[in-house]
């Protein structure tokens, strides 16, 4: 512990003094010509206490003083883990789905609303996962595809009066088209250039939605979009089908649940297919992948189109849920939030992304009084994850076995 302390106290002290110097001009200099320090000391003190506590815990753990509690705990978790792996994979999935099916019975309106949000973001996160996690293409304008899907349904509905189920393929199609349009010129670039160009494309799409007054009604958005209509069987006097508007929240919840399950299984199957392996090879080494006969351009374009496809579907559901769309919902911060979910959960890992979405949607709802700190925490989460656990909370498992593992 002393060793650890010796190593750490100097950078920590310097960092804290640096932080004080950073905070003071922002908090302590007032426009009436006075200088104060107590506000700065208050904020700084909170940060100091919090970080010192974390540091102390870290040092105690490193020094081995926690082994008395930690050893039985880790043994217990490893035992649970082996048990958990012994249980077949499908039973977890069935359990989760059953739990999700019974949720509206226990949750009130608010809870269902949050659950719908979680499911829609799971679709978005998994879609973004195709680009970032599987193919290694960082996309910072992902939310634009979601916006295209939402606006496609909103416009087709409000202008031509088409129903939800007819518009759904169109939403997906237009999002795919947008994905191809964005992807085609940008995929010659690599890495960080691609990130900033997709950011630019996302902003272009948002600006078009914002400024094309005659079509999209600009920043005011489109009001009065129809809810989802469905023919449900009615068993009074024989079997007849009647048309229902799915305005009840729990009915809509089941629709979104179906979409999320479809997305998760679709992406799982893409992941273990030939296409998924091609994507992973592009992520690992593009030149080597091309050398092995993978048509990298087509596969990267396909990653874009597939990612946009799921975003478009989610967008149509979002428009039907809110019954209102406006460009405000599709800003860069939304893209960053989805990206943060993927990064937190683990790029390329489906259960990880579900956990990441759950953490970043449900926790802010629980800690409502810290609402204004939300984006601050998102930002720092991204930095901290990259520094200490770049693979995410539940790292992705590599599909199949590598040749060197098989030989050994």
């Amino acid at each position, binding site marked *: 512990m002393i060793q650890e302390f010796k190593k750490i106290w100097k950078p920590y002290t310097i960092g804290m003094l640096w932080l004080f110097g950073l905070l003071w001009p922002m908090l302590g200099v007032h426009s009436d010509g006075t200088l104060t320090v107590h506000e700065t000391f208050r904020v700084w003190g909170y940060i100091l206490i919090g970080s010192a506590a974390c540091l102390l815990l870290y040092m105690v753990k490193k020094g081995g003083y926690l082994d008395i509690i930690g050893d039985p705990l880790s043994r217990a978790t490893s035992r649970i883990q082996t048990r958990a792996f012994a249980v077949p994979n499908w039973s977890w999935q069935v359990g989760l789905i059953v739990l999700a099916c019974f949720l509206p019975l226990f949750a009130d309106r608010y809870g269902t609303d949050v659950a719908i949000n979680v499911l829609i973001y799971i679709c978005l996160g998994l879609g973004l996962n195709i680009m970032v996690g599987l193919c290694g293409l960082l996309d910072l304008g992902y939310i634009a595809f979601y916006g295209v899907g939402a606006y496609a349904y909103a416009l087709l509905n409000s202008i031509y009066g088409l129903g939800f189920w007819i518009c759904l393929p169109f939403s997906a199609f237009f999002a795919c088209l947008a994905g191809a349009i964005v992807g085609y010129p940008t995929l010659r670039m690599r890495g960080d250039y691609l990130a900033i160009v997709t950011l630019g494309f996302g902003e272009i799409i948002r600006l078009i939605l914002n400024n094309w007054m005659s079509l999209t009604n600009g920043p005011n958005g489109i009001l009065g979009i129809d809810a989802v209509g469905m023919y449900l069987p009615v068993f009074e006097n024989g079997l007849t089908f009647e048309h229902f508007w799915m305005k009840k929240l729990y009915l809509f919840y089941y629709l979104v649940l179906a979409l999320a399950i479809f997305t998760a299984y679709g992406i799982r199957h893409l992941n273990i297919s030939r296409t998924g392996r091609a994507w992973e090879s592009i992520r690992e080494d593009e030149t080597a992948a091309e050398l092995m006969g993978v048509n990298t351009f087509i596969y990267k374009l396909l990653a874009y189109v597939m990612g946009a496809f799921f975003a478009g579907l989610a967008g149509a559901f979002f428009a039907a849920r809110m019954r209102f769309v406006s460009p405000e919902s599709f800003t860069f911060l939304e893209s960053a939030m989805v990206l943060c979910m993927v990064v937190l959960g683990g790029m390329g890992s489906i259960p990880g992304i579900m956990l990441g979405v759950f953490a970043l949607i449900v926790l802010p709802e629980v800690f409502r009084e810290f609402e204004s700190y939300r984006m601050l925490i998102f930002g720092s989460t991204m930095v901290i994850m990259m520094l200490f656990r*770049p693979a995410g909370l539940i790292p992705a498992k590599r599909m199949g076995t590598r040749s060197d593992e098989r030989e050994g």
Partner: protein
Amino acid sequence: MRLDPSSAASFYPPKFKKLRIMEYFIQQFVNGLTLGGMYALIALGYTMVYGVIQLINFAHGEFFAAGGYVGAITLGYLSGLGYMQTHPVLCLSAAFVFAMAYCAYLAVGVEKIAYKPLRRESRLAALLSALGMSIFLSNGMMLTQGVYDKIYPGEMFQGRFDFGTVAISYLQIMIIVLTALLLVGLNILVFKTKIGMAMRATAQDKTMSALVAIGSNKIISLTFAIGAGLAAAAGIMYGLYYGSVRYDMGFIPGIKAFAAAVLGGIGNITGAMIGGLIIGMVEVFGAGYFSSEYKDVFAFIILIGVLYFKPTGIMGENIDDTRV
């Protein structure tokens, strides 16, 4: 009256427009020069950092916003003490000095915390860390300074020269002159001094420059500090020019300045200056002659076009595979 380059079109009633094409052009040219100078100052930070560690510093736009805030705070403090009325030029210089120093300080710390540990990791990791830092900083500014626009204190430099119908405000002259001075100073620093030589050497080959006893960590810190200082100067100019600052104001100018850096050839200092001027001109003329609603789109289209047709930019050398 606050000057907005895009509202210059409304100066003239339609029937005079044809008669005054030349004046209108000159007016827009001056506006474009002002805006382009600011973009050039921001773009230099991107290009220098990219030249040294091949990282797009997403948080650079936030350095620009922080500079604007510190300038506003300093000017507010000094006007609260009453010095603004007696010594306006001195106060403004103090604001520039403080803001540039503050941002250099901020940037050095950010580099040590968020970028240095990831220098050997994959580029995706560094990029995500930079993005997180950008979100963190802009929200930190929001929490300490409030969600609303912060009005820039003082009605300095409000007078203007009138040449016929062309109006050039003192503020625009100040911005253009100061930008030119900073750019010349940077050129001297990079191309004529020992430190500049060390920076160029580090940008070319870190291992080799370490062998001739150049501390690459120090040079990287210095690069961040200089880039952030220039961005801070641009932040104050932007605040004075538009009359207010906002916590998220770094985002759009940041992307535009990045477009300028790419247009000039990323890693190339002269290129970034030229690129900034071109982006500023395109934005002002696009807003004046085509449509002011889509003025943000022009820079993005230039960015995409340049990356598609000539990724090395105007002045860039051949970029090998690892860079593009």
